[in-house]
């Protein structure tokens, strides 16, 4: 059976951690830049009055802004792999002025003809007062050899 996993390619190992990446503090300029670039001008992210009306303490940064940071983090780790799928669940908001930290780990390498590297990815939000981070989102990414 051809497993696709050859000795000539340095496959990631299950359990291997990606280097963490800390981003922010995310200011309104960064939020507006993402809103413009993504077209997501939902006032929840841009208008404090709307955010307060929605029961939030501040304007939340776009969840997809944090998700967008995963791909350069993955490329900085391995340029010979490409992201082919990414599925994210948003759990808690991260607010303007906070930082977020991305982390990831290889949870599976499938022995298929074209092997898939499955990553568990997370983003934690930090309020900046030394408090532990809150899990903001979890994602599963699938990578393949380029």
């Amino acid at each position, binding site marked *: 059976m051809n497993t696709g996993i050859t000795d000539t390619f340095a496959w990631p190992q299950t359990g291997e951690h990606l280097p963490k990446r800390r981003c922010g503090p995310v200011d309104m300029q960064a939020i507006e830049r993402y809103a413009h670039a993504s077209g997501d001008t939902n006032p929840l992210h841009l208008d404090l009055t709307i955010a307060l009306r929605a029961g939030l303490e501040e304007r939340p940064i776009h969840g997809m802004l944090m998700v967008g940071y995963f791909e350069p983090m993955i490329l900085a780790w391995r340029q010979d792999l490409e992201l082919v*799928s990414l599925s994210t669940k*948003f759990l808690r908001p991260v607010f303007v002025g906070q930082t977020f930290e991305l982390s990831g780990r290889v949870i599976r390498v499938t022995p298929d003809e074209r092997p898939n590297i499955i990553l568990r990815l997370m983003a934690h939000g930090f309020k900046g007062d030394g408090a532990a981070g809150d899990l903001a989102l979890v994602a599963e990414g699938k990578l393949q050899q380029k």
Partner: protein
Amino acid sequence: MNEPIEDMTADASGALRLGPFPVSAKRSDVEAFRAATGWHEADLKDSVRVPHTFPMLWLSGAELRAAIEAKVQSLGGIAIHESQTFTYQKPLDVDRDYLLSAEIETHTNPDRLSVRVSVSEMNDVLLDIETILRVAGVNEPSP
């Protein structure tokens, strides 16, 4: 009130189908997206490729956005982004044109919208996107 939307139909399940609409991965848009999502010069070696989540820009196109906003309005609340999935069959390239088709389905208890989008080129589907939006009530402002 949103303008009526052309190029849309509802099927027997009540799902609203839109498109296909032409979309484009313009280099200037891709560069702006990269700048907003933490890409550094060192990451740009493979710069002909469209960033994985760049098609979010197409989801905010006028037709699709108006349809989603009308659905959210009919449910009476604001949209909270609950989950997002991208599944690529082939990568997308900068400065290429594609076609986008969408299907919006409403679910109740709790109120949610599922938005399924496919991006294609020459009848080949290159990318499937699924967005789940929870529709939550908005508190009235304090007097």
